[in-house]
């Protein structure tokens, strides 16, 4: 029973709570309470704004800060130039915002602020948030595709060199793979972030429970778990970067389909 009390609920960290007494705030019958999720989105937005604004001095010889911001924009610029080509230039603002928003959200959610009593909330660990981002990307792909190519956009479902005797099957498979895109895009980010945070929480429950049950278990189970937690934290920083990059990369690939077809 003592172990039961000491255990950590790994799902508690994902709980959305209304803040500042806005529980029953509603607009057109929908609850629009200001939650911890919204708070961390706001913090993320402010952090990005501060970061980018600090690099807007446009000096000929950039300082450190300007260099940091320029390397970020240059990174996204290269990504789009490599994957979409010259037509990708106009998507730099969107992909940059997307990348920075996800990257900052993932990194801010990993901050060990719980030590000072603030609980960081990783809103990218919620399917509703990543789902909206994915739908936004998918909608842009559809709008650009139909606006540029009209109904010719449907030739996306028949890749070049499809054998005639497979024409009954290939468009069907391509259609499904096309329609699954927003789900896979959203699911990947949400699950990767959630899995990492659950893993950290489970390991921390190992540490706490074993330390509570004596020196022997504390040293046999607790200390290795704690060392593993440190390593997993490092891995989580890597995953935070990679997932933001993969989201931006896949969005730019889908934009490439819309701009240039196959």
């Amino acid at each position, binding site marked *: 029973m003592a172990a039961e009390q000491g255990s950590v609920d790994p799902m508690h960290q994902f709980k959305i709570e209304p803040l500042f007494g806005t529980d029953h705030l509603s607009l057109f019958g929908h609850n629009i309470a200001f939650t911890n999720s919204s708070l961390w989105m706001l913090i993320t937005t402010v952090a990005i704004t501060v970061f980018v604004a600090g690099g807007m001095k446009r000096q000929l010889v950039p300082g450190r800060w300007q260099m940091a911001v320029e390397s970020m924009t240059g990174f996204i610029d290269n990504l789009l130039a*490599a994957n979409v080509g010259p037509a990708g230039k106009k998507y730099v603002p969107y992909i940059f915002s997307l990348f920075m928003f996800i990257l900052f959200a993932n990194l801010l959610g990993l901050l060990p602020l719980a030590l000072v009593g603030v609980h960081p909330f990783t809103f990218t660990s919620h399917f509703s948030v990543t789902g909206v981002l994915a739908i936004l990307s998918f909608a842009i792909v559809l709008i650009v595709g139909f606006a540029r190519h009209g109904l010719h956009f449907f030739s996306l479902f028949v890749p070049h060199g499809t054998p005639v005797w497979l024409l009954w099957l290939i468009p069907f498979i391509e259609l499904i793979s096309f329609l699954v895109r927003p789900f*896979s895009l959203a699911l990947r980010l949400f*699950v990767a972030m959630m899995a990492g945070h659950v893993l950290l929480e489970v390991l921390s429950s190992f540490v706490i429970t074993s330390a509570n049950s004596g020196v022997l278990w504390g040293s046999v189970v607790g200390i290795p778990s704690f060392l593993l937690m440190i390593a997993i934290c490092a891995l989580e920083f890597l995953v935070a970067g990679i997932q933001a990059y993969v989201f931006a990369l896949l969005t730019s690939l889908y934009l490439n389909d819309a701009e240039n077809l196959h």
Partner: protein
Amino acid sequence: MDATAAKLIGAGLAAIGAGMAAIGVGNVFGSFLESALRNPGAADGQQGRLFIGFAAAELLGLLSFVVAMILIFVA
């Protein structure tokens, strides 16, 4: 069999999928490194494809994680 026990066994079996995805991700990066060492000049140009392969392999492992989570917490 007890329904809860069946759920937990199912969640454990779903972990096999996560392990398989680990093999897949390792394969992606291993093959990339192998060929990048053979032809370092061409390696940088293929980094995008490396991450596409990584994302595809990883997604399948994450799906098995989702299955496990659904079995434990939702079903």
